[in-house]
């Protein structure tokens, strides 16, 4: 009897080789004419989220009061990261600073793309799917915004920025 995906949620695996694989994949995609690389990586993250949420989710509903906790839980449980999170209410942005990003570590000269675009896609999709299921009127619309800094770009940390709107069924 093989593993089930539910069982995998309870264990860890080492990302070192996969992290390198992401860079090699991105480079392969670029060489073969994929122009919307960033969107493709985010799409990968969204697909991961769609499957992942069937086996684990941090909560049943996300709103402005538990947003930071939900993000922290997702990062800790899935990525084994402990990022710092800042909410910018004026611009409706959430800035996540991860010193130990699971998908970026080394600076590559040949391609300007951060592996954590995948994380951006995954986290926003998890939150969107939770709220879609909960259907609450105070829920958030959560979207990927940008990765302004990344260890893959030569920065010391990765910063993933999300955009949110409070809008219920939106």
């Amino acid at each position, binding site marked *: *009897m*093989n*593993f*089930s*995906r539910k*069982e*995998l*949620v309870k*264990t*860890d*695996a*080492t*990302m*070192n*080789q*996969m*992290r*390198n*694989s*992401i860079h*090699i*994949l991105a*480079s*392969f*995609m670029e*060489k*073969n004419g*994929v122009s919307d690389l960033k969107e*493709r990586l985010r799409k*990968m993250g969204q*697909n*991961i989220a*769609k*499957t*992942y949420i*069937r*086996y*684990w989710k941090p909560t049943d509903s996300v709103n402005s009061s538990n947003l930071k906790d939900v993000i922290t839980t997702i990062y*800790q*449980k*899935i*990525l*084994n990261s*402990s990022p*710092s999170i800042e909410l910018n209410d004026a611009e409706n942005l959430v800035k996540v600073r991860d010193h*130990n990003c*699971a998908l970026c*570590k080394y600076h590559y000269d040949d391609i300007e793309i951060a592996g954590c675009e*995948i994380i951006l896609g995954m986290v926003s999709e998890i939150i969107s799917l939770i709220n879609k299921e909960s259907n609450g009127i105070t829920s958030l619309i959560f979207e990927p915004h940008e990765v302004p800094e990344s260890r893959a770009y030569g920065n010391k940390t990765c910063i993933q920025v999300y955009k949110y709107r409070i809008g219920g069924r939106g």
Partner: protein
Amino acid sequence: MGAFQWLMKKITKVFGRSTNALFYTLLYREILKEINEITKKEEDSLIILREIGKRAAYESCERHSNIFKFMPGSPKKVLDYFEILWVVVFGRELDDYSYEEIPKEGSKYNDYIVKISKCPLCADYGQDNEDTFNFNKLKDKKTEGLACGLCGMLESVANFILKIKRNDYRIQIVEQACIAKGGDCLQFICKIHDYKSWEKLMDSRSKERNALKVNFGEYLEEEDIVQETKLDIIDKLQDVISIDKLEEYLDEPLESIKERVSDIIRDKLNMEPDHFFDYFRNYEDDMIKIIGYLGTHLLNEYGGLLEKSLKNEWFSKVFGYIFRQLKEMTLLFIPLDVIRDYNELLVSFLDGLAPPEMVDNVKQFTGRDTINYLFEGAQMALENLGIEFSELKENVWEELKKERENGLISSETTPIDKTRERVPQIISIIQEILMIFNDILTLPIRVLISESHYGLKTAINSVVSEEEGLYGSIRERFDKIFDQIEEIRK
């Protein structure tokens, strides 16, 4: 599983960057899907995924090449240590596997078939809407399956080890059965090639890749590259300190270990053991210091971890204080009888290897002398590696006071909270280390008692069995320590 094999697995696992295993599996799936978006042909996608795996693992191996110097250098042994390869690549234990040897006439090495009953990559594959890579579209049923990327990684790591050990043989690892493809287990075939047949294989792989209608850039031909790096201390010693050799040494009685050491000195240094030790006659204290010195440098050979850590001023200071404290406390807390036992063990080891005069001189040392010399050697090595012992304060509290006044310790609550969260783990680690210390205190007398008849391992396991004896107890404690370290690293 041998002690060193176990330790190697633990170290590799603890120092990797881990995530949740389901995230790993799904990311792997997405990579394959993205490749397939480009190739539009399932067979080609699997070839590309294997190449990506190979290249990714090679990149990682190059960054941490020192770890692999401890691995055995013969292809057969590399396969014996398949579990370690798996942990290096995947970072998780290999659950329930078996392998059989397939005789291959006219060849130095046989083929091996490895069967793994549980494959994390294939877990529940096909049950979610996003599992869109369709294995039914494969026309050639001999094509590899979902684990081909993993296969590329394993092959790359195995061949990196052989390359770094300057071995001319190479290993080909091919996925033969895949659960996602309908197989009942994950099955690899491992074939060992000499240089010529490996060249042929590389040629055919190259043709296969050139036939693909995609651009992969330059393919990795790492196996052809002759290593021309400068030899470091581990390179020089790797023939005698690889994990398979260390396992063998542990199985030998003390007399056999002495014989082996003699052979190594004859073989590597071209001199008789008593001539070698004669160089240290009347400098026996220096010899013991060298043991402490080399021991510390050997520790640092694991990826230069110690040296890198000590570059951080704060860590260097903390380590310096702990070392100094340990030096003082060792003599306070370890009974002198126990230290004497260690001294006797050293004398027994040198007896017959070194000139009698030298053995007599070592006998004159008290246990306290030996410990002090070892610590002096280790301190010299730590100074080389970056600890400024002369700059340390009288005690750690004065250091903290000074740093607070200078405002160098952050007053932000977050890091403090994080540290506070880690306190239970740190306490557990200290507790386990103390218990190991206690266990080890009883070791020399066991070795001395069993030295003439049994191996060191027998002495270590002398209580009941490997699991329940001293070895089992120490291993269990290390398991707990590694678990706590993993927790702290999360």
